[in-house]
């Protein structure tokens, strides 16, 4: 009985986790496809199969398309074939052009070709003609590792992609969650991405003075981008509190200002950063193969969770959103809390801008367009109420994941673009509805 209650409590708090799991399962099903394995075991099995079909000492060529990990796979195949008592005169890792040139050079009879899936297609198309022209190839058979079924979605590489792709939106959504819990909104974050990216790129190039920027320059420039956005956020918060202007209006104004400034500072053209090291944050993967942007995202979520759940500032934020008057009377510094959340939201948008610039090694004034809506969608799908007073930090992460997973799934299956937009809308509505139902059943159940 107790465990059932716990499950109900868990589901009512994180009902969107269920939506996420269902989505993952669904997308796994529709992205199920034949995969070509590249493991040592697959190489050994392939070598065994070829050895059975060919006489001992026969010539076998290894042929795989170039790419990450392909050289290693070719080496594994070569070792396995040699161990199986076959002779490997040539091992080619390259383009179809390289393959053709290498095959045309063969003089000794080739019994078989061990290929990956791409090169197997090449051979199936080209070998009949090549075989007519080149006697060495006229009895050659082609073998590739036995394919197995696995969803493209569930490949480790793809799952990391999804996390990497949502990292910017998810990080900004931390700030947005806090803003929305105080019953506010921040429409300026998309423009701040562009502004921060441009300021960062301009500062880096300026600091370097025409030369190649050093790591110090990169750090200083990024700090400048983040700081400027934090200051803008502070300005937003001050306007909201001092003049009592609705956050919607203030941040709408800031949105236009920041967008314009981004174009002015960049003179309307993207600014490339001439140091590839700048890509470390956006594209690098240092910790156990996890992308740096994902590590940063997870770290920030843990910190934000601790702040919201275990510190007084977290309690203040909920209190301000729940009932500002009651909060004020019970001694919560309402105005400072509001300035704090908008500053933090600006700062995180600035960080998002640096990450986006790092991703492209360019500060682009066009970037960040409409990202504010994705961020708000992540927060809302994550179960935070626009009325304020309630919401969970990790709920927002799940919300960002739901949106990222749908986007990824639709790209993997080639869903038409306008349909994608419809699906987004429907999923946002469903997620919010499920959340409402959970809340209701939790209330009546208690």
């Amino acid at each position, binding site marked *: 009985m107790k465990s059932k209650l716990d499950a109900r409590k868990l589901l009512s708090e994180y009902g969107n986790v269920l939506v996420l799991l269902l989505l993952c399962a669904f997308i796994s099903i529709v992205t199920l496809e034949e995969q070509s394995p590249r493991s040592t075991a697959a190489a050994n099995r392939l070598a065994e199969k070829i050895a059975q079909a060919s006489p001992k000492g026969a010539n076998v060529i290894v042929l795989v398309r170039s790419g990450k990990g392909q050289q290693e796979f070719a080496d594994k195949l070569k070792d396995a074939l040699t161990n199986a008592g076959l002779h490997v005169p040539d091992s080619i890792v390259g383009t179809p052009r390289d393959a053709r040139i290498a095959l045309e050079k063969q003089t000794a009879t080739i019994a078989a070709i061990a290929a990956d899936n791409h090169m197997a297609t090449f051979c199936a*198309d080209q070998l009949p003609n090549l075989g007519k022209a080149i006697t060495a190839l006229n009895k050659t058979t082609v073998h590739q590792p036995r394919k197995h079924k696995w969803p493209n979605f569930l490949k480790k590489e793809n799952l990391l992609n999804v996390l990497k792709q949502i990292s910017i939106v998810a990080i900004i959504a931390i700030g947005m969650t806090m803003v929305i819990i105080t019953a506010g909104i921040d429409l300026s974050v998309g423009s701040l991405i562009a502004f921060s990216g441009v300021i960062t790129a301009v500062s880096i190039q300026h600091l370097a003075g025409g030369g190649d920027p050093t790591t110090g320059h990169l750090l200083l420039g990024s700090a400048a981008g983040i700081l400027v956005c934090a200051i803008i956020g502070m300005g937003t918060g001050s306007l909201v509190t001092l003049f009592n202007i609705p956050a919607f209006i203030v941040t709408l104004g800031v949105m236009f200002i920041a967008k314009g400034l981004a174009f002015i500072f960049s003179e309307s*053209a993207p600014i490339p950063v001439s140091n590839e090291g700048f890509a470390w944050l956006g594209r690098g993967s240092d910790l156990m193969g996890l992308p740096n942007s994902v590590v940063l995202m997870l770290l920030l979520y843990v910190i934000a969770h601790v702040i919201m759940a275990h510190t007084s500032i977290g309690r203040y934020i909920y209190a301000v959103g729940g009932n500002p008057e009651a909060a004020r009377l019970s001694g919560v510094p309402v105005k400072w809390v509001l300035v704090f959340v908008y500053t933090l939201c600006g700062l995180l948008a600035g960080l998002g801008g640096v990450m986006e610039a790092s991703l*492209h*090694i360019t500060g682009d004034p066009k970037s960040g367009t409409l990202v504010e809506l994705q961020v708000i969608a992540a927060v809302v799908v994550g179960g935070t109420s626009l009325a304020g007073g309630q919401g969970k930090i990790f709920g927002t992460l799940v919300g960002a994941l739901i949106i990222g997973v749908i986007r990824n799934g639709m*790209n993997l299956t080639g869903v038409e673009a306008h349909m994608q937009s419809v699906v987004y809308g429907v999923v946002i509505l469903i997620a919010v509805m499920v959340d409402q139902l959970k809340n209701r059943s939790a209330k009546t159940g208690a």
Partner: protein
Amino acid sequence: MKKFLTLLSALPAILLFAWLGCGGDKSKGVIAYTPQTLSNPFFGVIGDHIRAEAEQNGYEVLIVDPDYDVKKQSDQFDDFIAKNVTAIVLVPCDRLSVGPAVQAANKAGIPVFTVDAKCAAEGVKIEGHVGTDNFQGGELAGKAMIDALGEKGGKVLILDLKRAHSCVLRVEGFKKVINAHNKESTGKIEVVAELDGNGDRTKGYQSTADALQAHSDLDAIFAINDPSALGAYTAVKEAKRQDKIKIIGFDGQLDGKQAIKEGKIYGDPIQHPDKMGKLIVQLIVKYQAGEEIQPETLIPATLYTKAEADQDPDLK
């Protein structure tokens, strides 16, 4: 609540059925296409012909829409790499910032081809490009302008799109012909304003409306694509000056052609997105066969005026 949990536990079973249910396919691989946007029919036509030609050659096609957003386009590249596609056809949303995404595909061994617009980032490998000869197209627009204005010349507004290199080339070709004409002829053609038309109707309309206020004696407009040319026409019509002001567009999209037939637009140098889609796939097929391929193929634009429109079976 119980229902949900039952559903959840049923998932592995569903997965298993799907695994059993899926048969193997005999496709040679996937050609992925990411244009700037699909809201411009031009890129849609390229996509349709990529699909037709690719399927004829035994490839599957995956078409996605980054909606002018480089971040989205980069994400799509990551998805293509995860899917291990055969080749990627790209129309860069931004000729520089798309660089790291192309590098990632290069690293994964996936060949990248560009169509229409080129990628100008450093350190990237593009296997082949098919596009319109935009400079030559601009020259055609210049010649059409000279025809349209006749002996006495006149004052011209250009609606440009500076962030698209292809459109910059069109304006350069246009100006070259106009300058050469002005040296030889007495009826000078003067470019009185160059405004941003953003390549769309809304901005084309706004900029033209402003220019009409500033230049009461405007004689003609050259817009770098059809949507901005049609926006310009709306403004001209609103000012009731459609009989005096000649408009020349670019592209030859269906609504542009229709407007030419109806006399709203004088003429277009037209591009051939159908040929582009077809040629890029033929290039990929050649590449996959290990043959040597030409790094760049430019398709000349051709001039399309009312005479051609009247013969066009696609128009009403």
